């Protein structure tokens, strides 16, 4: 029999001990959440501010928000696909195809002012949804690896966009498209009024709906998910379809900014898309990630771009730095995965 400790009655209540969080435990918790990317972004901003005062210029801050929006749209779509354990390499060609298709419809269908922008935007979204659906069908029905399917779609889409236009841009787009993409109410861009609700919807979809949780399940362990009754194929198809639609939304914004339908639009955006999602904590192995993390990742990538430009670094140096940051983020992802794996 165990004797009660001196001074304590066997029936007396156990004194409450305040839970102590050690620094390392706190750091582990922060590192495991998406908040650390936001903290990192703010820290990065504050550290660089004395060396690049223009960074804190209000106009520059507005510019950062403007630059984030199209990237946010396409990166959120990529997050949905990455959650399922897949990848969509074709987002750049979806942007180009949507840009060309939308610009063509806006300039040739002769619709009245205002309607041309709306119809053209829906044409872009439809093209994005169609290409995303094609990707999803090839992956789920033909059991092809996502990497190969989307690589092929990327190559075909890029080539097709150039073929359609003979590599010429399509100018003369509606003024309303330019206004939507470039202007706003005070410091709030009009595009934010679309991208923010879309982001909130996707965030809610992942966190609050059964279908959203299925995405995680498919990415974490597709076989187990299937045995548990998750409609793996439908969920995967949904992820690629949504990714296509969101890439199309970013095409609307990019096209409006340049006021030109371009067959090479978005060609170089892929590094930023993957970088933002991985930095934001979305696992390249599937099953883990969040929309909020991706938004923070987009903020960090955009901030790097903007600040290094202000510091006068060449594009090649910026690419090298971004590549290194993304490499470290991917490394962190691998480490976290191993830790989680060991804990299971």
């Amino acid at each position, binding site marked *: 029999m165990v004797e009660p400790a001196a001074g304590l009655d066997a029936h007396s209540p156990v004194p409450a001990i305040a839970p102590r969080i050690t620094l390392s435990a706190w750091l582990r918790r922060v590192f495991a959440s998406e908040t650390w990317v936001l903290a990192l972004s703010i820290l990065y901003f504050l550290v660089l501010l004395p060396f690049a005062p223009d960074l804190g210029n209000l106009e520059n801050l507005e510019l950062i928000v403007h630059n984030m929006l199209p990237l946010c749209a396409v990166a959120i779509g990529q997050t949905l696909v990455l959650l399922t354990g897949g990848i969509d390499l074709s987002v750049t060609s979806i942007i180009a195809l949507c840009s060309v298709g939308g610009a063509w419809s806006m300039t040739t269908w002769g619709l009245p002012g205002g309607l041309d922008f709306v119809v053209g935007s829906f044409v872009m979204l439809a093209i994005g949804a169609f290409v995303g659906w094609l990707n999803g069908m090839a992956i789920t029905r033909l059991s092809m690896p996502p990497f190969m399917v989307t690589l092929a779609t990327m190559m075909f889409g890029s080539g097709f966009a150039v073929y359609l236009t*003979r590599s010429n841009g399509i100018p003369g787009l509606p003024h309303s498209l330019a206004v939507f993409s470039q202007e706003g109410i005070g410091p709030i861009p009009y595009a934010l009024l679309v991208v923010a609700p879309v982001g909130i919807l996707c965030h809610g979809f992942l966190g609050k709906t059964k279908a959203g949780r299925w995405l995680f399940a498919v990415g974490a362990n597709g076989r187990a998910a299937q045995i548990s009754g998750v409609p793996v194929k439908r969920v995967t198809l949904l992820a690629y379809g949504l990714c296509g639609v969101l890439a199309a939304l970013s095409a609307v914004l990019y096209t409006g*900014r340049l006021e030109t339908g371009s067959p090479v639009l978005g060609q170089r955006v892929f590094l930023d898309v993957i970088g933002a999602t991985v930095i934001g904590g979305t696992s390249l192995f599937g099953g883990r990630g969040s929309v909020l993390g991706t938004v923070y990742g987009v903020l960090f990538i955009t901030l790097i771009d903007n600040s290094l430009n202000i510091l006068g670094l060449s594009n090649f140096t910026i690419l090298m730095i971004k590549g290194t940051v993304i490499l470290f983020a991917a490394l962190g992802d691998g480490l976290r995965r191993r830790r989680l794996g060991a804990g299971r």
Partner: protein
Amino acid sequence: MISRRLIMGAGISLPLAACRPRTGGRLRVGVAFETLQTEYWVASFDIIRSELEKNNIETLEAISDGDANRQLEQIKSFVARRVDGVIVAPKDAHTVIPMIKAVNRRDIPIVIYNRPPAENPYKRVTVGTDNFGITRNTVQYLCQLARQTMPARAGKKHKALILMGDLGDINAIGRRDGFDAAVKENADIVEVVTRVPTEWNQEKALAGITNGLQAHPDISLVFTSSDFLLPSVVSALKNAGKFHPAGHPEHVLLGAFDGDSMAFRMLRDKTLDADGVQDAYAQSRLVVQSILAMRAGEKVNPLVLDPGLVVHQENLKETTSRMWGAQLVLQSERANRG
């Protein structure tokens, strides 16, 4: 909690940062180039930068690596940083228009370098090259040489091949049209048998000229719309056993455009007959002068075209100082000797 504090800290620091004054009294000009992929763009960028430095103007640099959207972001960043002028070498004629518009909003002078924008109502100065005129003169010179060889060819026309650039690029179109105009004037001695659309891509150029030489082994005149495609031309001609200096009975008449270092070396070796040269020095001076004149509120011609020059075997010595590629070669040779 710590993150929230950080956010609040940032919220306080932002307005403070925004109030900081700009350091120094020097003018600041943003220079945004679409690419530094070829020697011409690198040389132009360096010459513009040194020309600005000569005028005690600080240069802010941005290269967008072929991405028009990134270039727009860079230009807007220049505007946000309140530059005193912007110089842009854009990707194409259309995507530059929102950039001009963004700069115009702040009434900042803007000069478009080398690629004229499509028609638009905004205020800008374009400093470009007379691509049509320089190419026509270069090909005219090649045709003169071709005419001299006609007696030896027993009246047989020269078969010509042209490597065209990206036909979405107004410069490439000007060069193609200049070539066509010169060939049309000399239709009695030159016939174009192959047109290679390279899209400014060396691999496509190599494949195109190799195929062209296989289909027409008697090609005796080649023109490339840019010097940076010369390695592809030389490689294909060597493989076909047709790469010989001027004076050799099987020499293929060769013309090019730009004025880079390889063209200069080939002119010296007599393997290149003529090169249409863009006077990058004169253009850079014009660019900086235009920015300063616009700032001073002076009236500036909205389109300034550099007439360039044709450098060939006969005038090589006297034109070397105006050929930017020659200067690069000579500087590097001097450095190696020193």
